[in-house]
């Protein structure tokens, strides 16, 4: 690494860094109680980047020869120069103090110390427990990942750290005639095998089967603007997809975000606070350092309804004269660094979930998310839920099928009038535009607000 860093400097990079990654993963998939695949994957490679007069050049590879990395360093500088010559305006990076740190993850039972047979058995147990007469198809998966990073840069940083993640998931598909409905759920985090050990796998699988069968009888959700009690997962989508993506510093620099001029302004009711926190213990998006070597950080994005600020990489910190927040992240050694979220969530309030429902005359309660879509330009929210429930006169009523929630994000946040104490975060991966997936988590409390509901 040191030779590559020297080569970056010698070739004329104003700043440069080298990141090596060694990624190991173990993945099990089972369906209908039969093994589908057991995969053991090892990826190793390095990526270099050079910053020249405001433009970046990247070069990466998987060769084990240091001469190849040195040659790639020169290439990265040449590529950056080409970009600079094409009219990229100069900009400055926010310089970080040089440090030399090695960090190990806080894992109680290392997945690499658990026999593969146990991992297969865990997935099989979930799959087996989903089985019942009305269920046409049972599925489960297990995955763990163990990534080791090393980073050195021209400012003298020399870092090494590991990230360990684990995930177990199930999906039951119930069938009746031509009709198919499904229920999906998972548990994940920056944790070890203890996460699986703590889970009642059979109950988890049976719960999915029950939910899938109930979905066959689920009613069409109501349509229109109405009170919606969002569950922690859907609250998290609102935090992540709209407010989070629009708070990414590069979108602010480009003035592509509807939040560009909102610092200090009211963007939600006083019950709404929101954070991005890469240090959140055990959450799927937690990281010791980002891909630029900046330590993870808890950033307050919204404080009691007032918009406070943005998430940053070294470059957006330099341009916007702010502190780096540890949000410069990359999918892997071959991909560029963008400003990305980590664990993004709304803070808890004072209410209990049941009290929120009891005080709702009519509306819906969401149950689990399927997907969401960013809109940093327009600030509109779209989320698809797995299912939900009608609320009638303060009571949870019949189950309704998956629905789409949409509306103007700020209008939704300003309509928040009840927030539960309890919060929860769900993990996942997040892309920027179409690509560049990184592990993240999103969540929050049960929140009552007004959203347009459709679909089913």
């Amino acid at each position, binding site marked *: 690494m040191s030779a590559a860093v020297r080569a970056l400097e010698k070739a004329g990079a104003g700043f440069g860094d080298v990141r090596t990654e060694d990624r190991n993963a173990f993945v099990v998939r089972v369906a209908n109680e039969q093994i589908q695949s057991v995969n053991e994957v*090892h*990826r190793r490679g390095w990526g270099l980047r050079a910053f020249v007069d405001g*433009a970046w050049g990247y070069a990466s590879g998987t060769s084990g020869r240091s001469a190849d990395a040195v040659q790639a360093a020169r290439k990265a500088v040449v590529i950056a120069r080409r*970009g600079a010559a094409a009219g990229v305006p100069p900009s400055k990076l926010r310089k970080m103090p040089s440090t030399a740190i090695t960090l190990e993850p806080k894992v109680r039972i290392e997945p690499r110390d658990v026999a593969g047979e146990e991992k297969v058995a865990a997935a099989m147990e979930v799959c087996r427990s989903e089985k019942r007469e009305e269920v046409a198809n049972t599925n489960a998966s297990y995955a763990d990942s163990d990534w080791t990073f090393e980073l050195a840069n021209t400012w003298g940083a020399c870092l090494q750290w590991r990230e360990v993640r684990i995930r177990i998931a199930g999906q039951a598909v119930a069938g009746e005639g031509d009709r198919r*409905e499904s229920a999906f759920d998972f548990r994940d985090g920056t944790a070890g095998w203890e996460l699986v050990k703590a889970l009642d796998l059979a109950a988890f699988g049976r719960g999915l089967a029950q939910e899938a069968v109930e979905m066959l009888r689920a009613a069409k959700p109501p349509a229109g603007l109405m009170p919606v009690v969002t569950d922690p997962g859907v609250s998290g989508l609102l935090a992540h997809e709209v407010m989070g993506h629009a708070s990414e510093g590069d979108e602010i620099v*480009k003035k592509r975000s509807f939040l560009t001029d909102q610092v200090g302004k009211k963007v939600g009711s006083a019950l709404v606070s929101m954070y991005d926190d890469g240090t959140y213990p055990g959450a799927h998006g937690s990281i010791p350092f980002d891909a630029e070597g900046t330590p993870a950080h808890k950033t307050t994005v919204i404080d009691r309804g007032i918009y406070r600020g943005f998430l940053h990489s070294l470059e957006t910190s330099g341009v916007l004269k702010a502190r780096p927040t540890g949000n410069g992240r990359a999918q892997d050694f071959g991909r560029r660094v963008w400003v990305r979220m980590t664990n993004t969530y709304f803070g808890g309030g004072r209410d209990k979930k049941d009290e929120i429902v009891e005080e709702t005359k009519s509306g819906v309660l969401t149950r689990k998310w399927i997907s969401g879509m960013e809109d940093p330009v327009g600030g509109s929210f779209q989320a698809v839920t797995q299912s939900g429930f009608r609320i009638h006169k303060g009571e949870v009523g019949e189950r309704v*099928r998956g629905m789409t929630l949409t509306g103007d994000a700020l209008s939704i946040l300003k309509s928040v009038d009840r927030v539960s104490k309890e919060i929860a975060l769900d993990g996942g991966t997040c892309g920027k535009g*179409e690509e560049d997936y990184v592990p993240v988590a999103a969540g929050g409390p049960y929140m009552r607000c007004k959203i347009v509901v459709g679909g089913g």
Partner: protein
Amino acid sequence: MRRAQSEGADAAEAYVITFTSRSVYIEDDVPKVAEERSETGLGVRAAKAKRVAFSATTLASPADVRSAVGAAIAGLKRVPEDPDFSGLPTEAGKGEVRGAWDAATATTDTAGLLDAAKTFTDAVRGSKATSVPKAIVRIQEYTFRVANSNGIVANHRGTLVFAYLTAKCGSKGKFGEGIVKAMNTSIRPIDFAAHGATVARRAAENLRARAFKGKLPGVAVLDPLDLGEVFLTTVGSAVNGEDVHKGRSPWAGKVGADVASAGVTVRDRPRMPSGLASGVADDEGNATQDRTLLEAGRLKGFFADRKHAALLGVPAGNGYRRAVATVEGAYTRPAETEPSNLVVEPGRKSLEALLAEVDSGVYVEKFAAPEVNPLSGSFAMEVRNATLIKKGELADHVKVALLTGNFYEGLKNVVGVGRDLSPSHAFLTAPGCAYVPPMAFDGFDLVGQS
């Protein structure tokens, strides 16, 4: 492969893919980031009786081969039997599909990509108060070889071009955005100036769009880009032999039934010239063949990898690992049943002619996310670039509205099929792509805020 057998496997398969890619990222009208990357990887599948295990590694030295084989052999001891495993392919596809690899694209360097990016940016900036906040142009050249212990060897090389292009217009906190994607096996046919003009128009229309109020039943004309993604996640799943075998497909047991309007014919075309997923062999090495899945609305059959082909009694040839926007990561997963080029047979009408036949409806060029439940077909997708149609003419641009309905029901109510095919894909690592024309559906509703 030989090492795996010497260490105890009855059968073994090796898949090696190497690729080089070059990308330019435009931000605020300038090429902020340029990158070059290369990667070589190996996937090993080992089998002993009915036990099958897979391992993968980046390939930098002979030690990596030993490591991957060792992991696969160790895996055999920990996996239960797969009673459906029917062995590895015995015949390989040979030759090349015309246009899958393009020499001019393979040799395009970063400077060439910067030129393409400038052409696009200049075209966008030709429109008033319009800029490029973000765009990606990437080319990739790849080669793979798959071999197994039955003695088959299949080779394939290809080039891929992927462009994700956006434009933004407006000022003082009020902005509109347009997005287009371009995908091809060659950079030469991609008209970056035309894409610039299209995306600038979409941005301007998005800025002018008004929130839609109420509910509009009628005809929805859908642009190919997002419609193709919807086809991949619904039809692509319903005719997927693995989903059929598992009981997930709503079309399981329906071969011979009418599942779509008579105007809808769908084929899987792995040998289509210049197709993004084209090749004479799939990623297991099986010889590919074009096949009809829906003919005039009637379900004709399914596609499958070797394992599910044997279970369903259909020809193999749809075992894929490589995606069509990028092949990165292809070696890290075993082949699974996926479409190659899922092609909706085009009609004879231009988009303008399709629109002219609509008395009342909406033309949707872009959704926030084109997501349909593949099991039930239900959807409610937020429109991002949409225009009302009144008496055959495009009228007001609308937003803050959902197009709702059931896509499987919509397939039975297709009232128009356009003539111009465009490619699209589902997501980054998903194999398979769709080539669909613009199509008109009756029975979907546009639902606004009140």
